[in-house]
């Protein structure tokens, strides 16, 4: 809502020295969010005067026609002025910027020679004066303002304009009337209500009308004027105000309805009486009905749409936009003015269905004063009579449905208990009265909110009014009382540890958007029946290219990796921890909407949750380039599948879990370089080098590797049991075994470990060798076995026996042969 200070001053007796900025500060403190204060025309300096064009001489021989004008500005001699515009005639009154004046934007006017003549000033357009948008021609002043009069004053060219972002609860502030009332309370000065007009007592009715659906509309008022002069012009003061408020002047009849909507907050509609047929009825649409609206769109109506109809059918979308057929035009002389009070939700739905947002619907959705229609319609008629030469037609049509009056009962100290401040009953009553409430009672207050405050329904709504007007700044700060919380949960602590451990291992965290696409799933080479292809679709995605929610963290991370590589950082490791979205095949298609007037039952909550997808927490790592750079110390080391698997171990360690690794084939990994990651029997993720086709699809550096693991599948760590530390010396035995080249080392190690028995303290693979001595298709694995007993020094025989047992187990399970020599 854009509010010109001059307009406001008409209705509130603000001290003369109050500026737009002062007022903004007060209104902000009272709860109106003033976003900007615009100083309009303050860089405008005169002399700027009303002139009358005496004579026009057309100059030719230039690229465009030019006029040389003699203009009477009230001096002895007329001014000679060059003008490029053509929308005026001799005798018109115009605004002349005389030499020495300055127009908005620092445009200095002087006497200068141009087009071969001396030009002593400029004839101005509304845009040049900063009071309109129209550049197309100069401003021809309506009426007969005095020649030589100060045009700055006449046009109200200097003003402060407050732009207020009105919150949805304060519909009343979408009007000069509402803001003026707040300003009056803020300064404690008198307020003059622009709606305070007294329509005459009338018995006769105007155009016939009725309300067929009282849930759609509870007040509908029609009033007529006749003999309107369609050529009558909107006066300058009204045009300037409309412009300041952000609306474009159109025609007098339209401008008057807009002007009153801005001033009072009551949207109005004007019908051409000649185009109406029979009684007007407010009702819902019928199936199949159509209406062509003012914007030349033919709309198929929904049975819920609220309509204004006559005998011909629909003639207007109530509260949103009029119909084309009954629109007033440049020949309309008899006008029927509609002022109504519609159901906010009904209007909201109609508007949303037809994407028909308008200044009128915006106000109806936020609540319009139900007591305005009679007064607003009367004022509209008055203005059209006064400015458009129309004839006032006595009589008013007033259809209404009963409306319930809100009454709120609160303990007089309710605001005190909400704020933690002692206001006392008198203050509470005074503040509620300030905003227009009627208050009765002593300890228990019965409060009737004013008609313009439909937002006041609950005790806390009233508390807020008292507290804000008494000043939020007067609420004290009470130091927090300590609360007996349990701190972070084991799972929350674990997540932090995993992040720190991966960062310490050289990975940089990225937080990528969780949006993905079918193309991503294809690029990952996922088979057609892969579970990760079961996705949730966003109805209104950020980009049509990525309408799905991710089922894996990898696409986002891979794109971030490619981005880094593209920016010259190709040696890079990234990680992300985040939710993926895995819809359940058996989920209901729709999450129910439960009641809100009571707490839901556990099974109701369960029914809502059942529709939601599984949202497990995953962690993923991607890496490429050199893991360790070459340097003066020698060779570097490329990032590899092994780093990816080690990253999984880093994660598992933070959860206290021992990870086991098995070869697997799983997209998007390289079929020969892919590890399945297990904790016990639970598959928790995969790691390895990416499939070359995936690397190509994402434009990644060669050999890019990745790991993805579902943290939610890892149980939080159990408390560690302290180990017994033996003080006896260890006995170390090295053993090399030869196995089939395809035999995973982990299996051989597991067999050795099991065969070695309880004396084994640790086992470590220290060499893998293939070569001629070993034989084609074979490999040698060398392990160090370290034995130790808790209670004695082991003898060489004991250690040797344990080693032999280990080798025997490996031989039996993996076909391992002890390597000779």
């Amino acid at each position: 809502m854009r509010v010109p200070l001059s307009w406001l001053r008409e209705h509130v007796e603000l001290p003369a020295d109050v500026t737009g900025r002062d007022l903004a500060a007060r209104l902000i403190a009272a709860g109106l969010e003033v976003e900007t204060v615009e100083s309009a025309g303050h860089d405008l300096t005169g002399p700027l005067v009303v002139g009358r064009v005496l004579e026009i001489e057309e100059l030719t021989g230039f690229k465009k026609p030019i006029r040389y004008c003699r203009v009477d500005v009230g001096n002895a001699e007329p001014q000679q002025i060059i003008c490029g515009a053509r929308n005026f005639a001799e005798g018109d009154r115009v605004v002349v910027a005389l030499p020495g004046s300055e127009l908005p934007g620092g445009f200095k006017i002087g006497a200068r020679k141009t087009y071969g003549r001396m030009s002593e000033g400029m004839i101005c357009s509304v845009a040049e004066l900063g009071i309109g948008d129209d550049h197309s021609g100069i401003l021809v002043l309506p009426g007969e303002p005095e020649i030589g009069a100060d045009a700055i004053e006449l046009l109200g060219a200097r003003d402060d304009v407050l732009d207020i972002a009105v919150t949805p609860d304060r519909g009343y502030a979408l009007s000069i009337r509402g803001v003026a009332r707040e300003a009056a309370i803020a300064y404690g000065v008198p307020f003059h209500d622009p709606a305070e007009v007294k329509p005459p007592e009338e018995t006769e009715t105007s155009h016939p009308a009725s309300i067929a659906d009282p849930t759609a509309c509870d007040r509908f008022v029609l009033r007529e004027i006749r003999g309107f002069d369609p050529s009558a012009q909107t006066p300058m003061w009204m045009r300037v105000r409309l412009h300041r408020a952000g609306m474009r002047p159109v025609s007098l009849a339209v401008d008057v309805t807009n002007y009153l909507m801005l001033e009072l907050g009551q949207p109005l509609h004007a019908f051409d009486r000649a185009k109406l047929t029979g009684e007007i009825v407010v009702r819902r649409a019928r199936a199949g009905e159509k209406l062509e609206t003012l914007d030349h769109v033919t709309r198929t109506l929904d049975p819920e749409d609220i309509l204004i109809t006559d005998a011909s059918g629909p003639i207007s979308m109530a509260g949103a936009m009029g119909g084309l057929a009954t629109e007033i035009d440049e020949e309309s002389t008899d006008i029927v003015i509609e002022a109504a009070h519609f159901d906010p939700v009904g209007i909201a739905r109609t508007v949303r269905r037809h994407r028909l947002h308008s200044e009128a619907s915006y106000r109806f959705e936020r609540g319009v004063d139900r007591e305005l229609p009679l007064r607003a319609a009367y004022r509209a008629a008055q203005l059209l009579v006064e400015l458009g030469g129309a004839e006032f037609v006595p009589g008013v049509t007033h259809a209404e449905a009963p409306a319930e009056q809100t009454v709120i009962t609160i303990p007089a100290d309710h605001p005190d208990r909400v704020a933690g401040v002692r206001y006392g009953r008198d203050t509470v009553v005074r503040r509620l009265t300030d905003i227009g409430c009627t208050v009765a009672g002593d300890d228990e207050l019965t409060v009737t909110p004013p008609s313009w405050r439909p937002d006041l329904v609950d005790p806390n709504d009233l508390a807020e009014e008292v507290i804000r007007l008494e000043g939020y700044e007067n609420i004290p700060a009470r130091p927090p009382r300590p609360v007996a919380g349990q701190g972070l949960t084991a799972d929350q602590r674990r997540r932090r540890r995993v992040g720190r451990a991966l960062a310490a291992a050289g990975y940089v965290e990225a937080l990528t958007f969780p949006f993905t696409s079918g193309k991503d799933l294809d690029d990952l080479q996922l088979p057609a029946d892969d579970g990760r292809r079961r996705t949730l679709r966003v109805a209104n995605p950020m980009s049509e290219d990525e309408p799905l929610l991710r089922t894996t963290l990898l696409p986002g991370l891979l794109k971030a990796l490619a981005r880094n590589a593209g920016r010259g950082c190709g040696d890079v490791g990234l990680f992300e921890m985040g939710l993926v979205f895995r819809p359940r095949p058996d989920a209901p298609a729709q999450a129910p909407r439960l009641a809100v007037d009571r707490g839901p039952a556990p099974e109701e909550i369960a029914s809502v949750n059942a529709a939601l997808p599984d949202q497990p927490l995953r962690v993923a790592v991607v890496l490429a380039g050199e893991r360790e750079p070459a340097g003066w110390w020698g060779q570097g080391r490329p990032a590899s599948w092994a780093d990816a698997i080690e990253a999984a171990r880093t994660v598992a360690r933070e959860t206290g879990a021992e990870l086991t690794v098995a070869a697997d084939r799983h997209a998007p990994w390289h079929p020969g370089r892919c590890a399945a990651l297990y904790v016990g029997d639970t598959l928790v993720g995969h790691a390895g080098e990416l499939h070359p086709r995936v690397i190509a699809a994402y434009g990644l550096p060669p050999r890019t590797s990745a790991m993805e693991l579902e943290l939610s599948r890892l149980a939080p760590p159990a408390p560690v049991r302290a180990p017994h530390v033996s003080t006896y010396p260890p006995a170390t035995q090295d053993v090399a075994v030869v196995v089939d080249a395809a035999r995973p080392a982990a299996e051989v190690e597991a067999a050795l470990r099991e065969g070695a028995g309880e004396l084994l303290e640790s086992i470590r693979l220290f060499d893998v060798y293939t070569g001629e001595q070993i034989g084609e298709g074979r490999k040698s694995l060398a392990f160090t076995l370290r034995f130790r007993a808790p209670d004695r020094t082991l003898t060489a025989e004991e250690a040797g026996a344990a080693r032999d047992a280990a080798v025997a187990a490996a031989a039996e399970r993996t076909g391992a042969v002890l390597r000779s020599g």
Partner: protein
Amino acid sequence: MSASNQSYDPVEVSILKPDEVDRMRAQALQAIAAAANLEELKRARLDHMADRSPLALANREIGALPPAARADAGKRVGAARKAVAQALQDRQAELEEERDRNALAQEAVDVTLPWDRAPRGARHPVTTMQERMTDVFVSMGFEVAEGPEVDAEWFNFDALNIPLDHPARSMQDTFWIAGQDGPDGSNQSGQSGQSGQSGQSGQSGMVLRTHTSPVQIRALLSRPLPVYVVSAGRTFRSDEFDATHSPVFHQMEGLAVDEGITMADLRGAIEAFVRGMFGEGLRTRFRPSYFPFTEPSAEVDMECFACRGASTDTGGRSCRTCDSAGWIELGGCGMVNPRVLVACGIDPDRYSGWAFGLGVERTLMFRHGVADMHDMVEGDVRFTLPFGMEI
């Protein structure tokens, strides 16, 4: 070498003459001083202190002197030998020190050589900022509550007093969930693209949560009263993506529901939060505002921690942190709307509560001077690395 001779005339034992002893002493000291290294010093020791050295010989001759002369000569020779021994010891230490110094100097390396072999990592500042913010509340005894990112409309809107068809619902640009896409690429709910969404509600009844507030509802439904929780996490708005807005961002929210909670408690909690995050002595300011889930509602500003309001004085230096406003918009807050309590099955006549929420990215922007939202979502390591492990 002579045997002791009682009749021996001391003046005849020339090497015990005082001049001679002084000369030997001087000669020894000079040789020691001249030793340039431990080898030469060893030779000097042999020459001047060993058994056959002149002073040792002289010492042996003392016995040959008449008793009356022995004491005098003994004292002189003893003093000389002691001085020489001391000089040897000092010089030995000196030369050893020098030898060691030389040896270590030989081993000197260029310590400015780089050793950037291990890759460097870092956590995302949004993550660490979330943790830091929540920790301020955790230190006051709050617990951390969590919830899903795809949530039901009932949790995200209805239970928070944001009814369908109320303008409050359009305050938040919402991503609506259309439905499931099957593994074969088919859309199983028959909805795709923009069909089937009215702008205020999707047919699946699910949304990408527009705020962390649905977590409040889940906390109130699942925890025994009183409830003191904080939640932080990813939120979504179908906004434009520009330097200051991202469709995916993060919020942190605190919630307290207990008996007798007032706005004064809210203000106290926010001041404690500001102290924990930005240090002592910063004022806070409430401005009335509107959120459907709180009533009364307020926007919270804090005094600018960079200029402490000094930049607002005319002539003061301008402040980039607060745009010389002196205040920084911190977030929104208010008293939990009793309607929200009712929807959670809580008696609003007995319990009241406050809620406070703020943007994580926005906080990073003003606290750390992050200029562009894109930097926070692109995953460029050059942006993230300097933030390290904590913030």
